[in-house]
């Protein structure tokens, strides 16, 4: 055959091989992904019933449990924290290396880091009846775990409190902790409402820049639209400078920062040694209103970026920093 | 026993007309010396005859076969080339390298049969390489490396043999050795040999006929004393020489004159 037709022929051959293999792969538990427009679960908030639990997860997969899970492996910091917060801590048999809150979680066996290849062996060895995965787990990894006979429930990261409540309710149904979950949700709602009402009289809407990462101090990373922290900033009656850049995790140049002149700078990278003094000393930053008025504050990165129940703590902290006169 | 006939051969290379309408024949058992100044087209001619360079116009025939109709493998059974020694393939042993000359006859995996072994053995003996058969080429001297290339061409068992500046990097002893080997090959095995060389005196001693190539044209073709004349050399090389007869063999000796 001529050289020109060689390549397309190979591609067709590969496509056929793919189709043949793809058709043969039937995972043990969940059927093929079904198309859904609303990825969130359609669960109820009532206490669990002994009938089989059927939920649709964030990838549109239908997940079935005969009864609430008693051996759960949590594959993210926020999921571990959430499970403990709804009282399902005793049902958690595995967590990842970065799940370090609450302190009881440290007693749970870690299956290692989620970076790179999933530690499938460690997960299997724990013989879980449920694995709850967050957005860092890729769809092919979910299918891979399914192929090993595991039941996996995938949740998208919440970007606002309603998403968080929905995720908590899903976890509650899966672990039979409906009552505790509702109590937790109620308390969070109350605290959010308290912040909102305190801010009703707020006259100003400061322009805020949140610095997530300044490995390159001339081009720090911030948060944009589509993140929980952006939601917190909105709830705290402020304007997120990062929202002016078109990306959920945008990189802002120093020039942009100086030009836009934010009123407040929040340092979510304070845990990694960035101090307000260091920021103020950066070239050109002395013209920024936030620096001139001493409005550069370190904030706890966990409480403001881990999308779990303690985001409300983060909200309270940010609101107090931005409107100190309304929070004594 | 075959002869090679070149008919009105024209060769172009990188847009330049390098060889312009060359005609000659080399008979079996004959050594034809190809001489000419740098850039005259000697190497180009050898490369075209061996199939490496495409022919612009004209034909090359080996007896009744037009080389243009042959595949690489078929051509390799008719024509073998002894190139100038280069450092390539130094990690192979002498025997491995000479065995590669049998490529046109061996199977795809290059596994030698008894005939191939026999040819290689004969070639190694002819080139006095039997003792060095297990040595790596890179460890040999320049003269020995050139003999390996000769043995490899021999193993290829072709009626036509082309040599492209085979003595350029050799010292006197090895030059003499190689040229006498070539002459023996032609006479004993009835090969048609085309020998392109700078060394005019070497050609004179070794060749039956000489062809003088200047600027891509064959300006003289005949016995050594007919071609190696002071006028021809002066015109071709723009160098003044005096020609005397070799004291022992009577062949023309080219003696350079200073300006």
């Amino acid at each position, binding site marked *: 055959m001529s050289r020109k037709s060689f390549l397309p022929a190979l*591609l067709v051959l590969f496509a056929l091989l793919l189709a043949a293999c793809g058709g043969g792969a039937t995972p043990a538990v969940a059927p093929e992904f079904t*198309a859904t427009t609303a990825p969130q679960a359609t669960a109820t908030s009532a206490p669990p019933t002994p009938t089989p639990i059927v939920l649709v997860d964030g990838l549109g997969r239908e997940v079935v449990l005969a009864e609430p899970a008693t051996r759960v492996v949590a594959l993210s910091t926020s999921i571990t924290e959430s499970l403990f917060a709804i009282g399902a801590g005793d049902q958690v048999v595995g967590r990842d290396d970065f799940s370090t809150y609450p302190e009881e979680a440290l007693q749970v066996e870690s299956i290692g880091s989620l*970076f790179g290849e999933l530690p499938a062996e460690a997960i299997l060895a724990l013989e879980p009846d449920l694995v709850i995965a967050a957005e860092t787990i890729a769809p092919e990894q979910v299918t891979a775990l399914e192929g090993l006979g595991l039941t996996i429930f995938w949740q998208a990261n919440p970007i606002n409190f309603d998403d968080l409540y929905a995720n908590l309710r899903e976890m509650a149904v899966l672990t039979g902790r409906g009552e505790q979950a509702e109590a937790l949700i109620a308390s969070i709602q109350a605290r959010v409402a308290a912040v909102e009402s305190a801010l009703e009289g707020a006259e100003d809407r400061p322009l805020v820049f949140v610095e997530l990462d300044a490995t390159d101090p001339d081009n720090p990373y911030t948060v944009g639209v589509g993140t929980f922290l952006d939601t917190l900033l909105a709830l705290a009656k402020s304007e997120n400078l990062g929202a002016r850049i078109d990306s959920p995790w945008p990189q802002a140049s120093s020039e942009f920062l100086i030009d836009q002149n934010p009123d407040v700078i929040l340092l979510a990278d304070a845990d990694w040694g960035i101090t307000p003094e260091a920021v103020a000393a950066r070239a050109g930053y002395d013209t920024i209103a936030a620096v001139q008025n001493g409005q550069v504050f370190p904030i706890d990165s966990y409480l403001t970026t881990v999308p779990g129940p303690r985001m409300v703590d983060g909200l309270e902290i940010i609101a107090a920093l931005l409107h100190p006169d309304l929070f004594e | 026993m075959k002869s090679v006939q070149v008919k009105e051969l024209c060769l172009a290379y990188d847009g330049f007309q390098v060889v312009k309408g060359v005609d000659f024949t080399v008979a079996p058992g004959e050594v034809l010396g190809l001489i000419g100044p740098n850039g005259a087209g000697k190497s180009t001619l050898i490369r075209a005859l061996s199939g490496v360079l495409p022919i612009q116009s004209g034909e090359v025939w080996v007896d009744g076969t037009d080389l243009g109709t042959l595949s690489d493998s078929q051509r390799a059974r008719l024509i073998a080339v002894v190139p100038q020694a280069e450092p390539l393939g130094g990690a192979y042993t002498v025997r491995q390298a000479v065995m590669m000359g049998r*490529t046109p006859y061996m199977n795809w995996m290059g596994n030698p049969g008894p005939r191939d072994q026999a040819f290689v053995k004969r070639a190694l003996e002819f080139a006095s390489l039997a003792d060095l058969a297990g040595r790596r080429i890179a460890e040999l001297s320049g003269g020995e490396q050139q003999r390996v290339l000769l043995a*490899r061409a021999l193993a290829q068992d072709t009626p036509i043999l082309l040599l492209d500046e085979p003595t350029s990097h050799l010292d006197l002893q090895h030059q003499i050795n190689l040229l006498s080997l070539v002459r023996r090959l032609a006479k004993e095995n009835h090969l048609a040999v085309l020998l392109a060389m700078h060394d005019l005196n070497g050609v004179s001693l070794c060749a039956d006929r000489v062809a003088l190539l200047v600027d891509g044209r064959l300006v003289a073709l005949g016995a050594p004393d007919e071609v190696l004349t002071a006028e021809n050399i002066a015109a071709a090389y723009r160098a003044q020489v005096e020609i005397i007869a070799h004291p022992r063999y009577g062949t023309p000796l080219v003696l350079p004159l200073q300006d």
Partner: protein
Amino acid sequence: MRLFSLTFAVLLAALILSVVLGAVWISPVSVLQIITDALPGVELSEVWSAAHAAIVLDIRLPHAILIALTGAALAGSGAAYQGLFRNPLADPYLIGVASGAGLGAVAAMAIHWPTELWNLYLIPAAAFLGAMLTIWLVYQLAKVRNIVPLTTLILAGVAVGSFASALTSFLMLRSDAQIYRAISFLLGGSPLTGWDPVLAVLPYVILGLGSLIFFGHPLNVLQFGEEQAKQMGVSVERVKIYVIVIASLTTAAAVAFSGVIGFVGLIVPHLFRLLGGPDYRKLIPLSIIGGAAALLLADMLARVLLAPSSLPVGIVTALAGAPFFLWILRRAKREVFW
């Protein structure tokens, strides 16, 4: 012949160790029992846990075979490339397979696929496609009528490869949190488990490597230069095309499922050239077997060193490969092996 037997023995040992060792401790006896029981027609009374059986049969065994196939593909193609390009620095990624595969994979990762289109093989297929398109582009750029000058091919490969890498980095930075997923692929690692990836890769590797073995002799002759090879009757341009296409296909298939693993394709052929000589008829098969063994050993280290987490295997091959390369260099100064 002794070298073949020795290398094969190392391969067997590596395979066995790969199945016995892992993040979770399972006794070798159990492993043996599990595997024996899995053989058709054999029934042992089950004294092991279902989890252990799943680990051995669904994780370790197919993973070991996939890694072995990948190592074989990389080293075999690497040897062929070194022979074709007559360049000791040649590796299977020389003309852009890795960059193309990386771009394909990361591009597929950057798209938010609607669930009805999602397929497990989407990313490997995209990687494979990226690799083959890159090779085709490089070939088109380098060829002059019907001839492919090797130096031009390398230069075109470097240029296109750099461009693809830059695009890949750009995509990685722009696409939210997909960076980890992309880095995993680029450092070498297979997110797919089970037997399906093995079955998908198998035909390419078997056919590809099987064909490359037949090019041992032409590659030998090519070491004396393209002109001399042609004068000895080798159809040089055809050999070049075939070796490039077959080696690229084989490498692309391996990379599609195992990510970009470096050093194996470069070092293993050199090692066997040093031990067994320059004859490509032996070198290619030796590299195939040795490459499988080497990558299995590297993968074992990657899985065990930081258990239960695993290092990307590409990091282990680089860390182990670099000092190894230096050792080869020192040997090379003392004897002729290239």
